[in-house]
């Protein structure tokens, strides 16, 4: 009989679908990026023994489980940034209990009412919004409502090969790097640097990755004062300020002061090999570059410094920042016990934020910024100013992720000479406005 032949596959499907184990602990699903490193840190429950984003967050979750035996954490690690999967889970009515989310993505999800406000839960976490740094607070607050618990604040920085700077005479009497204070001074320093070392002054992403060029452009626009996004539906790129920024970026590239044909990985490798003076990269690389500065075999040996992106335009001091946060997607099936367990998880991370700050990111809490422990970490005093001047893009700009890609495409095309500057600015503004107005 035909059914005889159907029996096995159907039974196999049914049996496999029903696989599972009973567990009396309250289960919460924690979804995050930062990669998987179970092989190296799966058994580590002391974050102090871990290094790097992946290692530290893995150890912190292990520690939480060890200290909270009544809670089972199901850890979902997603391919960065994981928003496609999250959206898919929300559409399938099965979102995780807590999930990592960039500050720049929170307004997008909040506008669609997909996140639970957490402001009323702050007392249960032992927190008030005043405990957050200004930048961290701005990153999780939308229309006055706290939508997440900040993990960190990060910013693009200038990582400096001090050995090459010394060779070019670009250090002061105390051996500190001399930073340019204008675009003209930048080009002058770059000229001196290239002449003295034969290497490019500036290491930046010039191909494939779009976030880097977009962030550099946004920083320079912010340094000129006037808002790039005057209201929630409009961007203002196609103006004299935009032209000045792109012309400067084009001058750097065309003048031979920048690396060429490098993506993010090539950038990092080039900097570690001593192939250029300044690398534009984020807070997360401070720890690794500092380790290289202590390695006698490294070109960075005793020659690494890091600074905020210097002010080169005439506006008020400012630095572009974003941040990582925990948010709680709305889920009508979440039980009070699961919600309480998720809040305990968030409280644990808030209490142990110093461990995370060892990655190089800025702590999200004032008490840690003010602590001798954090200030004693390498290079933190050189970049701590960002916690005061850091500004995210306004959170009324709902679609920041796609906008970052659009801006990155147009900026890359303009500074590499693939597209005229005027056309790039025009297209950047038109495409961005399309996104803002279609929301």
């Amino acid at each position, binding site marked *: 009989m*035909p059914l005889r*032949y159907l029996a096995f*596959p159907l039974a*196999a*499907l049914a049996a*496999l*679908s029903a696989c599972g184990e009973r567990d009396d602990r309250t289960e919460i*699903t924690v*979804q995050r*990026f*930062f*990669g*998987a*490193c*179970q*092989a*190296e840190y*799966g058994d580590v429950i002391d974050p102090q023994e871990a290094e*790097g*984003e*992946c290692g530290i967050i893995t150890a912190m979750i292990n520690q939480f489980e060890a200290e909270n035996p009544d809670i089972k954490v*199901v*850890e*979902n*690690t*997603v*391919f*960065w940034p994981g928003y*496609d*999967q999250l959206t*898919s*889970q929300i*559409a*399938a*009515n*099965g979102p995780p209990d807590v999930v990592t989310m960039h500050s720049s993505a929170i307004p997008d999800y909040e506008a669609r009412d997909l996140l639970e406000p957490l402001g009323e839960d702050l007392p249960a976490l032992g927190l008030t919004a005043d405990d957050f740094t200004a930048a961290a607070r701005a990153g999780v607050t939308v229309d006055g409502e706290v939508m997440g618990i900040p993990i960190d604040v990060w910013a693009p920085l200038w990582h400096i090969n001090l050995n090459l700077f010394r060779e070019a005479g670009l250090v002061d009497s105390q051996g500190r790097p001399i930073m340019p204070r204008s675009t003209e001074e930048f080009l002058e320093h770059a000229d001196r640097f290239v002449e003295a070392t034969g290497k490019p002054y500036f290491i930046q992403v010039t191909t494939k990755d779009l976030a880097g060029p977009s962030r550099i452009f946004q920083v320079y626009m912010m340094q000129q004062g006037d808002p790039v996004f005057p209201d929630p539906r409009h961007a203002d790129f196609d103006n004299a300020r935009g032209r000045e920024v792109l012309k400067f970026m084009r001058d750097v590239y065309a003048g031979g002061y920048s690396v060429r044909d490098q*993506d*993010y*990985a090539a950038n*990092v*490798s080039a900097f*570690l*090999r001593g192939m250029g003076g300044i690398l534009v990269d984020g807070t*997360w690389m401070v720890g*690794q570059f500092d380790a*290289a500065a202590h390695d006698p075999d*490294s070109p960075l040996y005793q020659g690494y410094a890091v600074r905020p992106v210097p002010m080169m335009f005439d506006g008020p001091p400012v630095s572009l920042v974003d941040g990582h946060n925990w948010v709680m997607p709305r889920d009508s099936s979440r039980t009070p016990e699961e919600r309480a367990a998720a809040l305990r998880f968030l409280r644990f991370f808030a209490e142990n934020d110093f461990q995370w700050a060892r990655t190089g990111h800025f702590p999200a809490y004032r008490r840690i910024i003010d602590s001798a422990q954090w200030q004693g970490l390498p290079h933190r005093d050189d970049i701590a100013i960002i916690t005061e001047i850091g500004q995210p893009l306004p959170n009324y700009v709902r679609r920041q992720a796609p906008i970052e890609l659009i801006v990155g495409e147009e900026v890359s095309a303009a500074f590499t000479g693939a597209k005229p500057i005027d056309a790039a600015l025009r297209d950047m503004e038109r495409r961005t406005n399309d996104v803002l107005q279609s929301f």
Partner: protein
Amino acid sequence: MSSAAVRRVPRAAVIGVTMAAGLMVLPMLWVLILSLKDSSALMADTTTAFSPPWTLVNYANIVGDGQVAVWLLNSTIVSLLMTGGVLFLSSLAGYGFARLEFPGRNILFIVVLFGLAIPEQAVIIGRHQLFAAAEMHNTYTALVMPGLSAPFGVFLMTQYFRAIPREIDEAAMLDGASRFRVFWRVLLPLTVPAQATLGIFTFFHAWNDYWWPLISATNRDMLTLTVGIAASQQNFAQAEGLGFLMAQAVFAGLPVLIIYVIFQKYIVRAVAGAAGQ
């Protein structure tokens, strides 16, 4: 063509093919050699891959992560179930379209063929909502079932059944065989070459599939190897964990390589057969 010309052309062809093969193998060798270096050394300079020390630590880390074994098992289960299901259903459908007379047969066959022209992306939202409504995401059923709809398989098997002379069916029926017995005992064994083609293509497609498992399997224990490996990457893994990443790529490719070595003869025939369709 003179005999001298015949001798010259193959030599050039051999050289050309050898060079092309070498070019194709180079990236794979590069992946292999990177996988044998410590990630921290590669982060500083990838050219260190050409000099010792080499290490198996990246492979040890893979084996040490229990999740990889789970993903490997998931990929194997999904690929085998999908391959078996496609062979079973496509054979039945192919036989039906080739041998049975029923109202609307030709229209139905055309409708099935339309499936070849509809990209997966066009139906993904509807499919996702369907499985969400049935609360079937994060199950093997959800991972396997969409792949069972295989218009190419139905088309291939239909054409193959049509090429078998009807006299064979008639002779079997005269001997008292039922229609299912004719299908199962007489015709199906004759379609083994087509089954091999379809089975190999389906298995490789299921093994390498990324998009649907990415969307449907969001629980870490239900990930397939392709999605799991992608999820293991750190934010900037191309810079931070290159050796481990390459070891994962080699590890993921090994089962397919083993299958290729075992079934090489059939795969070559399958590809040649598909090209001749």
